[in-house]
């Protein structure tokens, strides 16, 4: 059914609003998960002060649970509302702009960092099926009877768009560090610039493996074909590529063990030392949004996306059981589960590993990752040539 212009615009707006709302809801939940996961790794409870106590809104429930001699059922969620408290705190903090800062750039930098991080989501396919996630009932005005698709757009250069837009974010960090007119942020910003420039190369190279195998740059096509149309040998470059990509992804998002730009024991807070309030909150939002993007790309291209098995092995299952089998149906739950697991890996690594030194980071990038991703690319090319 062809859509009218009004329908297209309204539909797009609805999708944008839903997407932004989901991200805005998920990011704070990740920060809460971070407190909890790291807390449990470190034999402590993490945030517990809000909810789960004997007073407050949830007080009566919890008191009843304790009275029954049991720990409240949702004790793992104790402290959950802290993500709202975090946001509220950032919003109400005094917004300090240093006297000698370059004011315009200082104000722009967080936005430059955050906008690309969110814009990237436009090209990500959350569910590839043509049937969409659900259909609006016919009684709805304008959009009645239309499908709500699992992606915002499916442009034919989706991956290129993602890589291009995502790398704009580093300007925010560099400019933020520079505009603060302070020594620690400057060092942090420079570190970050060098780091991201270095890791962009192996990151793109490891993403070239799926592109080569499928022969397309469309996110949707890539994620479907990588799961369903791969020969068995393709699992080798995909398996290796997954780890290379994830390593570069950690570097791109400035997470441990590559968090040199904000190494608090060396540079206080790195590039955002001088930032306060919601401006700093923007940097945080961008960091966590980038984590979701990296996880989503890794899940879609390497871990089989919306299908059950990772590394293209689903193709073998389809071969064996037939495309109609229940195990071969795509589901958004698989995708969400894989993204969730990768986000957990981010937090897990943060709790476990120390931090690289600046020069070692460069060594890992230039002397290890670039050669091995190149070799991996050759393997993929050979497979493409011989088996496909």
């Amino acid at each position: 059914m062809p859509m009218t212009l009004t329908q297209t615009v309204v539909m797009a707006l609805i999708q944008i609003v839903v997407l932004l709302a989901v991200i805005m809801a998920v990011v704070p939940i990740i920060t809460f998960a971070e407190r909890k996961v790291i807390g449990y790794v470190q034999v402590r409870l993490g945030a517990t002060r809000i909810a789960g106590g004997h007073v407050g809104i949830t007080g009566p429930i919890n008191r009843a649970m304790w009275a029954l001699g049991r720990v409240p059922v949702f004790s793992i969620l104790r402290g959950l509302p802290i993500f709202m408290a975090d946001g509220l705190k950032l919003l109400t903090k005094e917004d300090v702009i240093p006297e000698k800062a370059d004011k315009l750039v200082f104000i722009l930098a967080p936005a430059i960092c955050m906008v690309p991080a969110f814009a990237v989501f436009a090209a990500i396919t959350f569910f590839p099926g043509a049937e969409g996630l659900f259909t609006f009932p016919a009684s709805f005005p304008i959009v009645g009877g239309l499908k709500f698709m699992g992606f915002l757009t499916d442009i034919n250069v989706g991956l290129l768009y993602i890589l291009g837009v995502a790398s704009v974010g580093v300007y925010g960090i560099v400019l933020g560090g520079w505009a603060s007119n302070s020594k620690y942020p400057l060092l942090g910003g420079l570190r970050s610039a060098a780091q991201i420039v270095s890791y962009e190369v192996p990151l793109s190279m490891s993403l070239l493996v799926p592109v080569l195998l499928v022969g397309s740059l469309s996110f949707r096509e890539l994620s479907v074909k990588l799961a369903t149309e791969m020969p068995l040998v393709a699992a080798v470059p995909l398996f290796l590529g997954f780890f290379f990509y994830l390593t570069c992804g950690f570097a791109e998002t400035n997470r441990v063990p590559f968090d040199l730009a904000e190494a608090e024991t060396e540079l206080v807070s790195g590039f955002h030392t001088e930032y306060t309030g919601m401006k700093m909150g923007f940097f945080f939002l961008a960091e966590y949004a980038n984590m979701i993007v990296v996880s989503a790309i890794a899940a879609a291209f390497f871990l089989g996306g919306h299908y059950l098995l990772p590394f293209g092995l689903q193709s073998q299952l389809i071969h064996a059981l037939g495309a109609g089998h229940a195990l071969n149906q795509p589901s958004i739950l698989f995708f969400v589960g894989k993204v969730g697991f990768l986000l957990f890996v981010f937090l897990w690594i943060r709790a476990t590993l120390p931090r690289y030194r600046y020069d070692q980071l460069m060594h890992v990038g230039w002397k290890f990752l670039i050669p091995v991703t190149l070799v991996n690319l050759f393997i993929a090319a050979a497979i493409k040539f011989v088996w496909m």
Partner: protein
Amino acid sequence: MFKNEEMEINLGPQHPSTHGVLRVKLRLDGETVTHCEPIIGYLHRGVEKICEDKTFFQGQVWTDRMDYVAAISNNLGWAESIEKLFGIEVPRRARYIRTMLTELNRISSHLLWLGTHALDIGAMTVFLYAFREREQILDLFEAFCGARLTTTAFRIGGLREDLPPGFLKQAQAFQDRFLACVDEYETLLTENRIWKKRTVGVAPISAEDCIAYGVTGPVLRAAGVAFDIRKAFPYAAYDEMEFDVPTATAADTYARYQVRVEEMRQSHRIVQQCIDKLPEGPVMAKLPKVLKSEVGEVYHAIEAPKGELGYYLVGEKGSGNPYRFHVRAPSFVNLQALPKMTEGKLLADVIAAIGTLDVVLGEVDR
């Protein structure tokens, strides 16, 4: 066109990684350190001068506040140097208890070092694991003398009181689980690639330089010199204890890490011997009500967790106070080596070097 400018930055006195109020003035060429100057004195209280106005009995309270993570070691040095000045013989049971508590204190000091050092390098979990065990040791101190940090644990001539009931059982409970805990820290760090990259070959200082600077303790032992005052000039009950002095030859941050971890195991061994062989008897020698000194001087050194902790006391005829009191503080002496260890290296190595020297500013500034 290409102007090469050096940047001067201050690490501290309020900085997350400088362990207290150490201020390090660095000149950086990019990220390379071209000049490093530790600036101290922010925590100076004049402990040595104050102690000259206090009686021999009162002075110990001030020693708590020097190396506040190893207060019991400081107490032991103070008590023993005065006993040496007056020629007081301490009962054997008291010496055993002193040894046990001092070794527990060494473990707790090394745990604090391990936690903060790992945290500086970015491994945040070790910190909380180490503090979990340190907490148990502090509970033991609390059971013994009521204080967890500033213990004032000993008295001249022995102990104020014997061990409280149940103390040995509590100590044994700690002993039983501690070795497994050390293994746990090691699983997180010892073979960790990133940890090794950040520590192997970082902040080296040779044995000759150590001796020239007067650097002692684990830093010296990691350079291959097996100098430990507990073995070389035994005090307290160390002559009756069996233990090894761990050494390493690499003289880098990783070697110091290995030496300190092994020292924790050896301290554990000593504590176990103290518990097993604890003799019966009094814990206090017979002392006059007031100690009036003769003219005389004494230097008594003990092996504190950070290195050689020496007390130099001069007695004045008929006086109840020391005429002159001086502390050879291991942190202070070891800190001198910081520029030597870091110049020409990277900024991140300065952080590792401060951590590996294990300085406590209360002791550096006194």
